[in-house]
């Protein structure tokens, strides 16, 4: 909170205030343009299908109704799918963060012999991969097909995210670690006690990346699982959309579902999969979106 108080002390000049206003204006315009599509999706999802399809852009719902949400939550499979996605996201993100930080810490140590080579070994996996089938065969040989592990492990470490964490670690004042090492602390202790506590911003940012990746991931569920008990939300929603839109669904002539267009279901599906992310987001955001004081760094 040092940050805020510092600003308050200083009287700002007129050009500075004008400049600020311009910046805020530009940002607000951009923010409006990026908010609109989601707003459109949300409004579409709570509009009557017949009204919605007359085209154009949405600012308010047309003939508002919650019938698509009602249809969506009518089957018990969606709760299974939601549950799967939630635990996959929680466990996957925690494991990913732990593994990334553990890997990033030694690689951030400039004097570590072989550091460049090891970095290269990790970086290489960002560009080159063996492809879907060989990866599938590995997962299969590990006996993970149709188990919860297959939803988590195959993508638990992203080299990209790991390098972002490493970069942050590198920028921390080296005096901190060194004094701890001189006191006889081992590297894991230094990571846990000294480095991680002051790395909240980057860990939160990475939790966001991993979390969203896990939440939205789709292909691993299609590939590595067969039974419906492990179905994730994204797969369920995709199935639902195509079952409503299927041209052959002539058996479909009745009830609430029949009054829904594929587009409305699609918009509803997007809404129910994005809203939880938006709810969780501010909790992570506060760690990096405002200037936190790294006073502890000075030790």
């Amino acid at each position, binding site marked *: 909170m040092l940050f805020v108080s510092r600003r308050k002390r200083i009287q700002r000049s007129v050009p500075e205030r004008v400049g600020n206003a311009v910046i805020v204006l530009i940002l607000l315009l951009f923010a409006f343009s990026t908010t609109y599509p989601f707003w459109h999706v949300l409004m579409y999802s709570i509009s009557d299908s017949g009204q919605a399809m007359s085209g154009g852009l949405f600012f308010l719902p047309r003939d508002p109704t919650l019938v698509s949400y009602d249809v969506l939550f009518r089957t018990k*499979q969606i709760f299974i799918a939601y549950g799967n996605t939630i*635990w996959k996201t929680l466990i996957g993100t925690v494991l990913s963060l732990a593994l990334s930080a553990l890997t990033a810490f030694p690689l951030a140590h400039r004097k570590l012999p072989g550091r460049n080579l090891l970095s290269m070994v990790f970086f290489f996996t960002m560009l080159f991969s063996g492809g879907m089938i060989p990866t599938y*065969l590995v997962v299969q040989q590990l006996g993970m097909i149709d188990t919860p592990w297959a939803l988590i492990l195959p993508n638990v470490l992203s080299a990209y995210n790991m390098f972002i964490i490493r970069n942050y670690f590198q920028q921390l004042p080296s005096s901190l670690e060194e004094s701890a090492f001189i006191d006889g602390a081992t590297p894991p202790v230094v990571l846990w006690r000294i480095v991680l506590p002051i790395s909240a911003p980057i860990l939160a940012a990475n939790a966001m990346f991993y979390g969203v990746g896990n939440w939205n991931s789709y292909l691993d569920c*299609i590939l590595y699982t067969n039974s*419906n008990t492990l179905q994730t939300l994204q797969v369920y929603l995709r199935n639902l959309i195509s079952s409503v839109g*299927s041209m052959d669904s002539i058996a479909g002539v009745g009830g609430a579902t029949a009054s829904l267009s594929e587009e409305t279901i699609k918009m509803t599906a997007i809404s129910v999969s994005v809203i939880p992310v938006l709810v969780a987001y501010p909790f992570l955001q506060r760690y990096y979106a405002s200037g936190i004081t790294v006073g502890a760094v000075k030790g």
Partner: protein
Amino acid sequence: MKKTLCMLLALLMTLSLVPTFATADELPEITWMITGSGTTSDENNMVLQKIGEAIGAKVNVIQVAPGDEDVKLNALIAANTLPDLFVADLADAQQFINEGMLCPLDEFLSDNGSEILAQVGEKLPKMPANQMDGSIYMIPGASADFMENLNVRVDWLKKLGLEMPTDLDSLYNVLHAFTYDDPDGNGQNDTVGIVLTMAQTNQWENLFGAFGIPYNKPCQLEDGTVTSYFKHPHFLECIQYLRKLYQDGVMDPDFATMPAMTAHEKLWSGACGVYGFRDVGVTNNWYPGRYTFECPEDPSEIFGFAQITGPYGDCGSVAQYPKLTTGMVVASTCKNPDAVVRLINYLFTEEGDNLTYLGVEDVMYRWIDKEAGKYERLNEYVDDAVHRANGGFTYWMNMPEDNAQLRTMNALTQQGQAEQQLHAIDYPYITSTIEAETEYGTLLDQIVKEATAQLIVTKGDVEAEYKEFVTRWENEGGLEYEAEATAAYAAQVK
């Protein structure tokens, strides 16, 4: 926190293992991969249990949404863990058979496949996949695909005092009136004659058909060459007609960029007067205002079908031939092929067909007049979401020729299909795999589609541009395709 998470994970893993142990005892188990329309049914739903009871096996279903089936199947092929029962096309089936990955079905058919043999027994030996080594591997559905109709708003015709169009000129006049004469009488210029979209083939078939061109299919030239419809002698003529529709604003100008769903929405929201699609969709449950008002008892109040005859006397949409190149196959790794054949056989029976299409009788639906194909859904199963969650429609494979879908259609739709079959545009239906087509078929197709879109909108010299596209098509592998297709078709006819 961490502890709880670990416990949670452990618990979930144990739970996932339970079913494997619990059901391993008596009943034979089979796995069945279903693609096509997405399915959202609950595990072990009512319909699936009924199927299991009928065939005396436990059926484990792998459901894959359209668009993902290749990804899934590729992985399963590579790992040699194919599902027991799935659908394959000829090119795949040939490879499977060569690698010994499919199970010959002859003996199981004679033991458990009476219904199959009764309905498609004659077709089986005609299928190329079943001619490879003398064994039967592939079982096709008995019914052919639906024909594409040109659906016309007869309520609009009536309002404007017009007749059902029969040739290209009267069609043009109707489209013009539908666009500019306010057919819906709302005082606004918000309608368009015909909506076409390049995102789908359905819309185009009848227009090309009027020039005798089998849209999106091969065609045979006078000298016997089998080639793409792109090189049909009347192709350019058809393009000129479409150009006129485009320039005069009687077709939707965004035909090249319009997503398929938006095109449907134009029909549903009552903005479009003529729409090329299967009447099965349009008149059976796709009325304009489908989402805003109750469907009328008699759809002929709203829709009729136009048969447009062109300058050379041609008329209709592309012919649908009985499927010979795709069907159900059984993996050689299958432990209970007899149970699988019982399952296929069951899908061919009237009982199995009704069950998979309409659900469990007297629980999910009830016949009002079985002969006339009239039924009603019961209780909460009136709603599609509930119906599907309990397995309704999910496992329907459209196997018998006289199937539940056909029987329950309304009269207008049945009539539309019957009429359309009288005017089919024949084309050389090649049943063998053509290498040039697997090699660059989609690239060639892309050139043709690019050409079609470009030629309709171009402001330049249409003929010169057409020639250029043809040359490009030929050089990109089109000539090879021509040679191969011509030879293959000649051999097939002989």
